[in-house]
């Protein structure tokens, strides 16, 4: 306890100097961060619906989400924005409890509009005008910085088959996909024997860690099955993965990454119902399930950020879908969001008209992702400017007072 208080003080000190006022630093050692990457550039304009914009309704004659109060209408968030109705049971309650927030006009300055280029550049978190260094992702650099101070023995994990670019780098990071039944063909005795073959090799730690993560996943699965036998139904799809992630992050990991695909909606994306609505519903259930499974105490110290490589065209295309755009909307969720963020739409915003579109086509990016993450990390972990500079070199953090 004493050590923890000391760490808080140490963490707060540089912040007080930088900001010129003393801000109570959160207890960084218990802080948890999960980054959810929606690969394929989701249509943010139908997630966070600009309900005050006539231009929105003119631009999307077939796929717009109706105004609040109308049948299948958006869920009202404030006078300008509404939420896709597929999130009524999941994210909307979190928003009302001030545990969810959206950053409109977020994204990257990368203008390739290539999924892969932009996904990579976001995960790397490096300056766009310099040669990419694929060995160094921004979450790994964050882990490196945290391990040197606020969180001793930081433990990052990607809930994916391969270690994603965001978590590549010098800091050790585990990875394990959580979909499927997670049954292993290798039993405990065999695992122990295999681990013994590696005990004197450089791979020993990773082999042991792989088995440990697998065992914890299997325990989580067992808990699900026990619960299912009492409750009738268990979660499916991304919600299942998300609940498993929560168990693992609550008990063991500080820093998580997961990706969710299927957002590239050039054709027939639907409106209040349909393809994209189903994806939103699944994602929303996952996020809410994650929060529930974390439990109140851990959730209070947790921040979930949902990002995507870019947004989509503001106008619908000839196939009732949307094409590659620019600015997007990030989600920020957590049990300990600040009063300035929880239940609000945050960040710099613009009135939406044809004149304010970027290249007469997309949302502009007014809240650059590295600056936004930098600001979040400063508040979550009490990082100094030097430490932030190691995560995002040469980027001034943007203070959105998210936590």
């Amino acid at each position: 306890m004493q050590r923890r208080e000391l760490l808080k003080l140490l963490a707060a000190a540089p912040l007080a100097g930088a900001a010129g006022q003393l801000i109570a630093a959160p207890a960084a050692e218990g802080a948890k961060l999960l980054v959810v990457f929606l690969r394929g550039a989701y249509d943010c304009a139908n997630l966070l619906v600009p309900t005050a914009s006539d231009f929105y309704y003119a631009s999307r004659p077939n796929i717009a989400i109706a105004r609040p109060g109308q049948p299948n209408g958006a869920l009202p968030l404030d006078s300008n924005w509404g939420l896709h109705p597929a999130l009524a049971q999941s994210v909307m309650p979190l928003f009302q409890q001030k545990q969810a927030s959206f950053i409109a006009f977020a994204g990257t300055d990368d203008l390739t509009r290539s999924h892969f280029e932009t996904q990579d550049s976001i995960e790397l978190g490096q300056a766009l005008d310099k040669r990419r260094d694929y060995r160094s992702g921004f979450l790994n650099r964050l882990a490196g910085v945290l391990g040197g101070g606020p969180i001793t023995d930081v433990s990052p994990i990607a809930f994916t088959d391969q270690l994603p670019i965001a978590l590549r780098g010098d800091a050790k990071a585990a990875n394990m996909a959580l979909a499927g039944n997670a049954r292993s063909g290798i039993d405990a005795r065999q695992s122990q024997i295999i681990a013994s073959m590696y005990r004197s090799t450089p791979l020993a730690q990773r082999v042991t860690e792989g088995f440990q993560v697998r065992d914890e996943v299997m325990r989580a699965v067992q808990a699900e099955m026990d619960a299912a036998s009492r409750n009738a139904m268990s979660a499916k799809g991304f919600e299942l993965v998300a609940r498993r992630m929560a168990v693992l992050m609550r008990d063991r990991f500080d820093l998580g990454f997961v990706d969710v695909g299927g957002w590239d909606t050039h054709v027939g994306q639907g409106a209040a119902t349909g393809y994209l609505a189903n994806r939103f519903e699944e994602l929303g259930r996952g996020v809410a399930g994650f929060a529930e499974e974390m439990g109140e105490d851990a959730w209070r110290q947790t921040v979930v950020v949902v990002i995507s490589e870019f947004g989509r065209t503001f106008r619908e295309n000839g196939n009732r879908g949307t094409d590659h755009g620019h600015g997007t909307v990030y989600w920020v969720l957590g049990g300990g969001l600040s009063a300035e963020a929880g239940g609000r739409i945050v960040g710099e915003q613009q009135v939406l008209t044809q004149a304010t579109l970027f290249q007469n086509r997309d949302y502009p990016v007014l809240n650059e992702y590295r600056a936004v993450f930098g600001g979040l990390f400063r508040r979550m972990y009490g990082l100094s400017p030097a430490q932030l500079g190691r995560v995002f070199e040469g980027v001034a953090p943007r203070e959105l007072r998210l936590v």
Partner: protein
Amino acid sequence: MLHLGRLCMVSAAMALAACTTGSLRSDAPPLSVSSTAADSPAAQLQWLDRVTWGANASSQAELAKTGLARWMGRQLKPQPQPLPPAAQAQIDAMTISRTPLDQLVIGLDAQRKAADALPDEDQKKAARQAYQQELTRLAREAQQRFVLRALYSPNQLQEQMTWFWMNHFNVNLRKDNIRALVGDYEENAIRPHALGRFRDLLGATLHHPAMLRYLDNAQNAANRINENYARELMELHTLGVGGGYSQADVQELARVLTGVGVSAQPADAVPNVRPAVRADYVRQGLFEFNPNRHDYGPKTLLGQPIQARGLAEADEALDRLVRAPATARFISRKLAVYFVADEPPPALVDRMAAAFTRSDGDIATTLKALFESPEFAASLGRKFRDPVHYVMAGVRLAYDDRVALNVNPMLNWINRMGEPLYGHETPDGYPLNEAAWASAGQMNTRFEIARAIGANGAVLFRADDKAPLEKPAFPPLAESNTVRAMQLGLSADTREALAQAKNPQEWNTFLLASPELMRR
């Protein structure tokens, strides 16, 4: 020579022995290697694990009989050699073997257009789906063909180099209709040049629709420049980053490459080219150089003007890129990373680069310098197997030359470990270093796959996924001469683990999961 090779193929079963021992390939210059390496069975196994897709009993016997120096000479200068008939028959039955690329793609384009034209939405959806499924099926054929050759081709180094260059000149299945193109790309652009001249290889990739579509050069036209291919051509294919080119060179090379594209029109449908440059029009299969789209203005690349005109500008540019010292170093280093170490010794790279330059970019000559080096010998057994290597080596060791009837389980294993064939999205190709493939989750998956091969490998020998598995369903690994020879080199910890196996399936699993089998 070629004629004799074909004769061998025709009467493969009878003539195989004669072909492999006859005078046909005696002209390949032997490699100079130390006699210890040549004589020691343990060392020969290590060479096989590095030079082939994995040591097995038949390659071990062939190497022992031929001698390392001559065997390596033949690997470096491969002659046409037959696959086992059961493997060749599978390849011969494939659409990609029976249909020329232009015919295939023109037919598919017609199918797509017909689907789009259907008035009924449900019918349209079904027809579009059928088109997509056909593309996927063609890509799967290419993957299957690759696996069959990697498992059974006597020209193992050529097969490894085919994978290496496919990765170096990466294209990705998910873009456009590359699923229909990738088999031909591998077969006609990459494999024939895998051990030949780098310039020929580079030129073949530039002329292939798979590359032109993947890196968007098919969209590159005068005044509507697309720099994508030009940049990667210098950064990833030749000079390497920091290889002495500037942003201005990227733009100039992009101008050189304007008009270099793809046509899916019937071969006799010549576009209306303005008279002054009509003679410059080129059409070869799907490849098209369209002078209407070419920027004929003067250009300077890497400090020198481009003298040629039309498509010949591209040849002049490629010649210049290939002869740049940076290219010799970049290619040599990448080969050394693949065949020696994640951080290859600079002295070795220097010697290879000198061989590359001396031979005007001859790949076999460059590799000869690598294989003859003490650094190579010292590195044996240390290089971490990437997923493709891991699966190939496990199956080769387990089943030797018994031909698989269904390689789909292998493709699935490779996919599970994150290295699907032709599946890398970005043009940089898969990483070749240990860090990319030795994560905690990957190791765990590998042990599951070790078990899949070791305890349930018979899935490869049933033609139908639902057919019952033969008994026993696992390979007799412990009875293999190769495994017996290998056991001497296993660590005490590994031998202790093997001694704890309760049954042959478990023994196989432990062996394939061992640290020694993770490396080549």
